[in-house]
């Protein structure tokens, strides 16, 4: 290869940045196109004068050490580690930190059970490492890479876990978190808090089969880091941007990609909204699958059933976000200011979560929602004017399609959330200066994610692994030659893991090498 391959990466999210950086490091000439005006500082985060929201993800974990190594990231990128506090209506809150759970209502038996549960489930999550850190292996027509991944996975399950743990893993892998937690714990609040991690961001509730698997994919991040509260100064994003620039990636902002140019069934560039066209040998899209295939590439360039299957992927989000601008620090019953730096959960028991979920199946919102709360301004004072604060809330559940229409329900739903909060923080309503509710439809518009789904598509088994986003394009390359997926729509999905971008980059590098050799 005499000339370097020209690559275009669409989208400046963390997956796009990581993919671009790694391609550049491999010697490709990379241009990254971002439709917004800035990579790391999203202008629409300022939801009230002087008040900033943390963006879409308000909890961060660190990237996998191997990925950090591949990117030569040195600094500790995320903020302070944090604990989770499950709020109790009577003030008997339960604190989770690492393998410990503390609270007046938690029995010794439950404490011990929690420690062993964490140990066991972290080992399951860890056993999935070969699967998550590689392109998902094909189950037929495998190449050596696929065989190697499968062998590593088999080894990790069979010998990493051992026969009895593997059997248990195979049993719980497909079931719901509700049954597992009921087998293990007595304390309702403990069970609810764990199950929130299994269901948040998904169209699932604790009794939905496969919620153990969603829990494990979330837990995976904790095999190598601890969660922290995200702030406006998204240091990870900054760091990724800096490393992209250092690697020689040409970052263009305000560069909205209108479509991928396809000639002779091959992608050979993109056309921008400005009308400008840019040619490239490779186009990698971190947009979701519906946007990538149905809008950017176009159905006419793809097989009919492929298009049908893409259009049938379940991509409707079920989480809304609420940002509150507060006059001062809210006071929660029985919580210190130090406690407020943590992640607060309102989910009294698993049935409560289940009841919050039921209405979304019918295009209705929860009447008593599950809430996940952070106060990022306690970590980053620049997010609010002096002495004032920002509260960031994830709300389960809010359907993408609301029967009555979101415009007719926005105020009511916001009020429901504030009422739910004030049961634990009575003075909160009087502290609110401004509020912003982002429904899944708003998230769709603002972040250009079809359906407003955190993960660019449900992480159900039928949309995971070699079926993500759909089979036929699950290994980052698409049916269109030179067009690749590198975002959360691809394996292993969303969350700030950077794994799709990393896996995609390695796939692209390997495939271009094969082609030129």
């Amino acid at each position, binding site marked *: 290869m005499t000339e370097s391959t020209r690559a275009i990466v669409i989208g400046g999210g963390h997956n796009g940045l990581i993919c671009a950086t790694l391609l550049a490091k491999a010697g490709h000439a990379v241009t990254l196109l971002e439709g917004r005006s800035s990579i790391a500082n999203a202008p629409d985060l300022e939801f009230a004068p002087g008040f900033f929201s943390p963006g879409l993800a308000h909890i961060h974990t660190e990237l996998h050490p191997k990925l950090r190594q591949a990117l030569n990231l040195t600094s500790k990128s995320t903020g302070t580690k944090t604990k989770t506090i499950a709020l109790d209506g009577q003030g008997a809150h339960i604190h989770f930190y690492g393998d410990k759970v503390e609270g007046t209502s938690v029995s010794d038996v439950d404490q011990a059970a929690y420690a062993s549960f964490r140990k066991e489930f972290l080992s399951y999550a860890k056993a999935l490492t070969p699967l998550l850190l590689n392109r998902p292996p094909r189950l037929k027509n495998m190449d050596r890479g696929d065989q190697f991944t499968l062998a590593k996975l088999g080894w990790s399950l069979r010998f990493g876990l051992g026969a009895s743990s593997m059997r248990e893993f195979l049993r719980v892998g497909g079931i719901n978190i509700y049954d597992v937690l009921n087998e293990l714990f007595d304390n309702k609040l403990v069970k609810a808090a764990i199950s929130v991690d299994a269901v948040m961001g998904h169209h699932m509730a604790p009794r939905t089969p496969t919620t153990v698997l969603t829990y494990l994919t979330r837990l995976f991040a904790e095999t190598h880091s601890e969660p922290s509260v995200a702030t406006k100064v998204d240091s990870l994003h900054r760091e990724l941007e800096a490393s992209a620039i250092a690697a020689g990636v040409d970052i263009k902002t305000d560069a909205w990609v209108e479509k991928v140019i396809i000639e002779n*069934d091959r992608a050979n560039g993109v056309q921008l909204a400005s009308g400008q066209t840019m040619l490239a040998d490779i186009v990698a899209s971190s947009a979701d699958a519906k946007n990538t295939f149905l809008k950017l590439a176009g*159905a*006419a360039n*793809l097989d*009919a059933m492929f298009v*049908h299957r893409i259009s049938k992927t379940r991509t409707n989000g079920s989480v809304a976000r609420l940002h509150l601008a507060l006059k001062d620090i809210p006071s929660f019953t029985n919580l210190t200011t130090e406690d407020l730096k943590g992640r607060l959960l309102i989910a009294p028991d698993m049935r409560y979560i289940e009841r919050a979920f039921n209405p979304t199946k019918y295009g209705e919102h929860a009447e008593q929602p599950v809430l996940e709360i952070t106060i990022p301004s306690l970590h980053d004072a620049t997010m609010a004017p002096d002495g004032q604060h920002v509260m960031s809330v994830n709300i389960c559940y809010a359907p993408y399609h609301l029967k009555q229409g979101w415009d007719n329900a926005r105020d009511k739903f916001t009020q429901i959330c504030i009422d739910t909060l004030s049961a634990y923080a009575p003075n909160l309503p009087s502290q609110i200066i401004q509020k912003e509710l982002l429904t899944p439809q708003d998230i769709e518009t603002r972040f250009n994610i079809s359906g407003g789904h955190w993960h660019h598509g449900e992480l159900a088994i039928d949309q995971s692994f070699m079926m993500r986003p759909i089979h036929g394009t699950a290994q980052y390359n698409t*049916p269109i030659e030179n067009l690749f997926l590198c975002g959360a729509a691809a394996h292993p999905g969303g969350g700030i893991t950077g794994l799709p971008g990393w896996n995609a980059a390695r796939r692209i590098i390997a495939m271009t090498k094969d082609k030129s050799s």
Partner: protein
Amino acid sequence: MSDHNYLSTHEPSPFDSGIRAQSQTENWTGWNGYLSPRIADTLASEYFAIRSSCSVMDLTPMEKYRITGPDATAFLNRLVTRDLTKLRVGRVAYVVWCNDEGKVIDDGTVFHLAENDYRLCAQHHQLDWLLLSSIGFDVSIQKETHDIAALSVQGPTSFSALSAAGIKGLETLKPFGILNTNVNGFELTVSRTGFTGDLGYELWAERARADDLWNTLFTLKDTGLFDIRLIGLDALEMVRIEAGFIMPGWDFNTAESTIRADHDRSPFELGLDWIVNFDKPYFTGKSALLAEKARPATRRLLKLTLEGNKPPVGSFIFHGKKGKQTGAVMAQTWSPILKRCLALADVDFIDGHPPNDLWAEIYYQKELKWHVKWARCEIVEGQFWSHPRRRATPPMPF
């Protein structure tokens, strides 16, 4: 309460009363939810009506879809393997369409009726596949199977007969051409198309004009000047094999209904290479077909003639007499006009080529006693039988 008539297994064709009056044998078979005659009178008279005078067949059961809208051409071009951008208004094309794996879902004809206005005729029900294929295209797809009264008029005297019936302009109508005309006070569309490999036409009218259309033809018969004869599906089967036409669902399993691995067929495997065009924008199955093209052929639906006069009903095909089994007969007939047995057979290839010595093992019965006989087969390229009158414009006035 619903008016759904659960007791009747079939829907009446708009030509129902006419067909029943002409049908002597009451030998019916189901076809796409309608009753069609297998034989209306006698097989021989019907076969020879097609080949030496004028035959009539009801096309109502054939699936018909109207495709309109700004993306109609792009939609159809992505659907089928042929390049339809070259199909002018007023022309018809024979097409096949495939699934993503490049296996044939169905075949049919596309009628370019007007700008952004097409009719697609298909052997099987296709609405689901058409709608599924329409994602991302600005088109409207309407099923019009029940709304059209259509008759196929085929045979050497079809031109003379239809002209005598008052249809003007047929002399300039070329094969695969469409003529919009008016006869006996109703609008009629005539296409020079058919499934017989002979001179012939298909006549299309509104359903409400079915009786008018029927009477236009059969009053002509009453004059005694033309032998116009209703034919059944058995005679059609003979002539379509002579013409080398394939029947999805009979000669091969259609892709959408295939359950077992390797039981579906690609256009190449059906010998339809001539309508697969890779020099056109993407179409469903293109990638798979390109990949297939790059590999040596593993099997083909071959046209075979067999020695002797025993039709190879359900026969296996062997490589060498009593050799290795290498295929099976999918359709067969005795051709009265060629005095020869014809067969379409699904045959395994060796290193990309057909075995050079093909034999059929034929079981037949004489006075309830079974016999077996081996017949040497010969591969035929192109049609078994064709006649210049099929393409002559103007057609000869037989």
